[in-house]
C-alpha cells in the first residue's frame, strides 16, 4: 500500500488512526452466510465518539459561554485560545440532559476500545504506522482524555 505517497492516516498520535477504520473492518466487508461470525456482543465502538453537537440545555449554556469568550474581532482562523472548549462541550453534552439517539453513548466503552488504549500504551512502536497530521486535533485529544477518565 505504498502507491500513493500522500497517504494520510491517523490523528495526532494514539490509536485514532486505527480507530477511524475499525468501523469499516467491523461493519463493512463481505459477509457470507455459510460462515459464522464471532460474537460482537458488547461492541459499541461505533457510538463512542460523541463529537456532534447535541441539543440540550447544558450544550446551549456552554455554547453561550463559548461565544462570550470568542474574540469577535479575530478572523475565523485557528488560534490556540480555546484548546479545551470542544472537549468541554461534547463531554458535558453527552453526560447532560441530551436528547436523541446519542444520549449516553459516550458512557459505553467497548472491549475493543479499552483494549486499543491499553495496547497503544504497551506497544508504542505500532504508533509509527500512522503519520501525524500537521494540524492539532483538539477534539480528538479532548475525547481521548475523557475516555481515560473512565
Amino acid at each position, binding site marked *: *500500500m505504498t*502507491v*500513493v505517497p*500522500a*497517504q*494520510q*492516516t491517523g490523528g495526532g498520535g494514539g*490509536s485514532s488512526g*486505527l480507530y*477511524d*477504520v*475499525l468501523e*469499516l*473492518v467491523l*461493519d*463493512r*466487508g*463481505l*459477509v*457470507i452466510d*455459510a*460462515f459464522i*461470525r*464471532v*460474537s460482537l456482543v458488547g*461492541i459499541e465502538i*461505533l457510538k463512542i465518539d*460523541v*463529537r*456532534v*453537537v447535541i*441539543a440540550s440545555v447544558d*450544550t*446551549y*449554556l*456552554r*455554547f453561550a*459561554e*463559548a*461565544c*462570550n469568550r*470568542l474574540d*469577535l474581532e479575530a478572523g*475565523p*482562523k*485557528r488560534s490556540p485560545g*480555546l484548546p479545551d*472548549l*470542544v472537549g468541554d*462541550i461534547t463531554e458535558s453534552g453527552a453526560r447532560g440532559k441530551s436528547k436523541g*439517539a*446519542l444520549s449516553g453513548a459516550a458512557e459505553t466503552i467497548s*472491549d*475493543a476500545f479499552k*483494549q486499543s488504549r491499553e*495496547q497503544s500504551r504497551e506497544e508504542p512502536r*505500532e504508533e509509527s504506522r500512522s503519520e501525524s497530521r500537521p494540524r492539532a*486535533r*483538539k*477534539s480528538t485529544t479532548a475525547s481521548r482524555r475523557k475516555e481515560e477518565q473512565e
Partner: protein
Amino acid sequence: MSTYVYGITAGSHPALPDGMGGVGDPAQEVRVIKEGDLAAVVSDAPEGLRPKRRDLLAHQNVLAETGAGGPVLPMRFGSVSPDDAAVAGVLAERGDHFKERLRALAGKVEYNVKATHDEEAVLHRVMSENPEVRALTEANRAAGGGGYDDRLRLGEMVVAAVKNREAEDAAEIQQALEPAAAAVSAGPESTGWLANLSFLVDRESAETFIATVEEVRKGHPHLDLRVHGPLPPYSFVEPGPSEPAEPAETDN
C-alpha cells in the same frame, strides 16, 4: 479446526501473503486455499476470538498486504468457516459472483473521509453569517455574560446554526469529492461525524482525489477532515448501494 477467512482474491494474484501473521495470540499463520480461479486468504481460527485491537489490526494488515498486490474482496471481521473444505466449497459455488466483483474492483481502493467542525472556527463563521447571533453575543457580553435566559437563548440559536452548517458542510464535501471518485458509500451511522463517507477511487487517480480533498480543506477552514486510505474496498464489496459518479477526467 475452524478456519478464519480474511478475504477472497484471484488465484493468479501475484503476491499472496502466505506465512504472514494473522489473528490470534500468538498470531496464526496466514495461508491460501485455492479453488478454480479463486483463492481465499485464511488462517486457523484462534480459540475464543474476540474483536480486540490486535486482531482487528491483523485482519486489516493481511488485507492491506493482499490488496497491495491485486484486487481483494475483504471479509467483514470475524468470518469463520467450519473448515478449509467449506471455504473451498463457497469459492466453487459462488465463483462467478466473486469473479465479477473482483473485476469490478480491479485497480480501485477505498478512501474514507470523516469530517468534524473546528469549534472555534465554526463559531466565527456562524457569527459572521448571522447578525442576530452576533448582536445577542455582544449584548450578553456587555451585560457581563447575560442572564440565564439570555444565555440559553443565545446558546440555542448558536446550536441550531451550527447544526445547519453540519448538514450543509456534509453535502458540500460529498458534492466536491464525488467527481474524483468512481463511487461513494455512506459510512456506518451514529459515529459522531458530520460527514463519514467512503469513496471508491482508481489507484491511478488517487493523487487527484487527495488533491481534491486538499482543496475542500482549504475552502472550508472551519472543517477538520480526516482521510484514510488506500484501504481494501470494504464498503464496495457488494454491488448495488453505491451510486455511480461521473468518471474522473481532470483535476477537481
